[in-house]
């Protein structure tokens, strides 16, 4: 009944190759965009935006980034936390005016607009990511995972040690000063919920559209060729150096953006060890695996699952049932863990595959053959 192609005629190749070729899908996509941009901003309060939408939107960007690397290009990375840290600290430097000390004199640029700070932070992270992607040319699989793990630890160490990165503050914390766009604050304490939300949503939408189209195009096909069999890909003319490094760079670009937003818009103050530790790398990797490798929708689903479920459980167990907080916190681990296992047993390819299967079923419904 749904997802029926019958009657959905296309007369050009362009129509045939669009992102959502099925009409119902396309309308659903417009509907989601409409709700996200035109309805939700009017219904937000501080709790919703800070506890639910901020983490969801920002982790979605990170998951998309990692999905490009792991899901599309097949390069395992455990350095996500470190790359997010690069994004956060780069954003901090740009938004406070990046400086250089020459002979004891400080030369500083004026603070850069927050939107461009975030984009520039992404670019810096892309360079760092490509640099740490170099080992991928020689090593694969678990060995590469270990190399990126080294990046994770090195970067955290670096931002603990390098005083310039945190403007020589006594505690090593970085604090996001008040910054805005078009005269509306998006960072700092005096931010309206909708401004924060829309700022992240716009960036997420751009990221998702770019990622989706990259992965549909020749670049994405090269990545997937490398993922499926690198030797065969090389023989048919895919340059592994370019493909792998571009995957690292693009992936890190997104992760850097998410790190920048994580620091500046969401938390407002971070310290590297606590916010961008190895746990973060695993968390994003789990999002990608649970959501579905090689799927942009999967990145959203995975982020939603791991960010929203604990909050939901907490609200139900503590708020709804009035259980002690520690008991609820422990149960939360149990339930989330059990659900992860259950989902992965039911569908090893993640939530995105469940969605795909559901769509197939709906297509045939109500007369499966």
């Amino acid at each position: 009944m749904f997802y029926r192609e019958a009657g959905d005629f296309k007369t050009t190749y362009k129509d045939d190759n669009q992102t959502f070729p099925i009409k119902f899908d396309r309308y659903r996509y417009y509907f989601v965009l409409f709700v996200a941009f035109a309805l939700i901003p009017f219904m937000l309060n501080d709790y919703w935006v800070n506890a639910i939408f901020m983490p969801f939107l920002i982790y979605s960007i990170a998951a998309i980034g990692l999905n490009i690397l792991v899901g599309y290009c097949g390069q395992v990375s455990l350095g996500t936390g470190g790359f997010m840290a690069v994004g956060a600290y780069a954003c901090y430097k740009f938004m406070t005016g990046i400086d250089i000390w020459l002979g004891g004199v400080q030369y500083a640029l004026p603070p850069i607009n927050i939107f461009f700070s975030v984009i520039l932070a992404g670019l810096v992270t892309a360079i760092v990511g490509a640099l740490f992607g170099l080992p991928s040319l020689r090593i694969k699989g678990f060995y590469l995972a270990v190399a990126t793990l080294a990046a994770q630890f090195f970067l955290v160490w670096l931002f603990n040690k390098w005083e310039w990165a945190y403007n020589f503050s006594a505690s090593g914390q970085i604090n996001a000063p008040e910054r805005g766009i078009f005269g509306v604050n998006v960072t700092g304490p005096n931010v309206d919920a909708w401004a924060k939300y829309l700022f992240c949503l716009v960036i997420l939408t751009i990221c998702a559209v770019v990622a989706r189209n990259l992965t549909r195009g020749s670049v994405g096909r090269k990545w997937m060729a490398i993922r499926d069999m690198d030797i065969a890909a090389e023989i048919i003319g895919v340059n592994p150096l370019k493909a792998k490094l571009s995957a690292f760079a693009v992936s890190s670009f997104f992760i850097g953006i998410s790190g920048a937003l994580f620091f500046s818009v969401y938390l407002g103050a971070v310290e590297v060890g606590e916010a961008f530790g190895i746990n973060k790398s695993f968390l994003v990797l789990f999002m990608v695996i649970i959501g579905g490798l090689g799927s942009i929708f999967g990145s959203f689903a995975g982020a939603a699952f791991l960010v929203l479920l604990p909050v939901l459980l907490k609200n139900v167990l503590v708020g709804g049932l009035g259980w002690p907080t520690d008991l609820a916190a422990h149960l939360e681990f149990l339930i989330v863990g059990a659900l992860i296992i259950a989902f992965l047993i039911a569908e090893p390819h993640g939530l995105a595959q469940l969605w795909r299967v559901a769509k197939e079923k709906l297509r045939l419904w109500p007369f499966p053959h």
Partner: protein
Amino acid sequence: MKKTLATMALAATMVAGPVMADLVFPSMSYRTGPYAAGGIPFADGYADYFTLLNERDGGIGGVMTQVPECETAYNTEKGVECYESLKGSGGLVYQPMSTGITYQLIPKVTADDIPMLTTGLGRTSAKNGKVFSHVFNFPANYWDGASGVINYLSGENAGDLKGKKITLIYHNSAYGKEPIRTLENLSVKHGYELKTIPVDHPGQEQKSQWLQIRRDKPDYVVMYGWGVMNQVAIQEAANIRFPMENFIGIWWSGSEVDVLPAGDVADGYKAVTFNGVGRDFPVYDDIQKYVVDAGKAAGNGNQIGTVMYNRGIYAAMLAAESAKTAQEIHGVADITPSMMRDGMEALEMTEEKMTSLGFPNFGPAFKVSCENHGGDGLVGVTQWDATAKEWKLISGFAPSDAEVIQPLIDEDSAAYAKEAGIEAGCK
């Protein structure tokens, strides 16, 4: 999927909204994770004191209190969630019990006009109320602690620390890094040699750090640790046979849970404190009568009388007294967070007041003002007696070195004011 989750969560939060018209003292506790060992007793103490006020006095100024709890697990992201969810309940004062969360909340509470109390933790320069209008860190702060340690050690050495080697082993976070500048500046003044060794979160692995200490052979080791890191450090110190009486921790590294796992070898370990230890205070009779015997103790009820529990009831007492002060100033019983802030800024703790509350000699007497949100920073020293299994106060509350600390506070708060675009001044 997102939408169904959202609606369900909405339903849950709507159920959760507590009844207004109580005085709400939210507790951002952590009863899970690597820092739970310190978080549980503190949270129990905090909750029990308000239970006591409700049961014994019928609340504060005739208005009942309530303590909604939210689990942060010492994690900043959960801290944000907790702050936002507790904000809905109309909390009067937040005590995040985590320096990381404190840093994050400083601009937020100021914007939301809600005070925050960080007893002995948080951002030290918040002592300057001209810049940090909504943040209070009385009665003592990290730099007072560092200075208190040095003063004590100096006293041990007849006022001369020249040429002594002191090593700081610290939790590699904003909390652990706080005292470094103070200790560096003090080293110029006292002439000791300072070395700093970081321990990364959570601090379960410290072999290499203690190997380094063993090689360096410092005269004293100072620790800024928290959670599981403390126990491990004390065990490792015992393993390299470092003399325990030369090992001295900040107040967050000096409770029963930190020393008990090491057993007898922990005997003689020292820690500074800003509040009294043990349960030899009249308030404990009331807690026993109104809270424990009534079966209303928070948690398991097995933490009563520990160092961290004492700190919890102390923090609660300071908050309750601030609320009383606020009620007096504004002449209303049902105060708002904004009034609470005024109460905190006008708080005066005198010896008579504490005695009447059942806390004789429990903490220092101090007076808060707009210029000074941090009290006078009186620091005492406690020592662990492994045979009696109790902490003993071995040095009375003595003032810290304001000569060194005050310029640092002025400098750091000025830097924050510049960064955040705050014009310093009293309201």
